[in-house]
């Protein structure tokens, strides 16, 4: 497996673990309040720190197990990144448009924030999935 693909796997797993924890926190706090918890910096800072720490651990593990982990992507892998970035952009736009449409119908600012945030996460997940898929199909 190419290091570029391994990196995409590591980042995908990190993002899914951290995002799952974020979702769990939001559901937990919302159940305690009885309504959707307003976005707060505490939960989001925890999320960002979790991503940074987990991705550092993942990359250290990758570097320790692979001789050429530090090499830059080659021309073929850069094409995968470009296509992944394109798909990621489409997912982000669709998510944001859906979130804005929902806001126009319901005027729920908190849900708008979470929807746009979810679109950001989904776009990043889509990028990693596309890179992995392009590697898998050759």
């Amino acid at each position, binding site marked *: 497996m*190419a290091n*570029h693909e391994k990196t995409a796997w590591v980042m995908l797993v990190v993002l899914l673990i951290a995002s799952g924890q974020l979702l769990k926190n939001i559901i937990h706090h919302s159940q305690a309040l009885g309504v959707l918890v307003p976005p707060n910096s505490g939960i989001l800072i925890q999320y960002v720190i979790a991503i940074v720490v987990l991705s550092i651990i993942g990359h250290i593990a990758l570097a320790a197990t692979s001789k050429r982990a530090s*090499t830059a992507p*080659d*021309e*073929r*892998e850069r094409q995968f990144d470009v296509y992944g970035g394109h798909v990621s952009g489409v997912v982000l736009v669709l998510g944001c448009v859906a979130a804005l449409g929902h806001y126009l119908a319901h005027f729920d600012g908190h849900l708008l924030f979470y929807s746009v945030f979810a679109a950001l996460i989904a776009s990043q997940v889509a990028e990693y999935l596309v890179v992995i898929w392009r590697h898998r*199909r*050759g």
Partner: protein
Amino acid sequence: MAKLLPITNCVKELREAAGMTQAELGEHVGVTRQTIAAIEQRRYSPSLETAFRIAVTFNTNLEAVFEYQP
């Protein structure tokens, strides 16, 4: 199965004749082993620069390595 690209090549034959592995050739021309494998299997057409590097590695010209078959 992925569609074969219209640029054929004899990279595999030249590499095996030179006694090189895909990883060694990749290191020589600045791409990964997986990219060399993709070139050999006509799943990826290399950039002009990489194509020239491959030809130079085998001490031959571009036309002897790559051919366009529309």
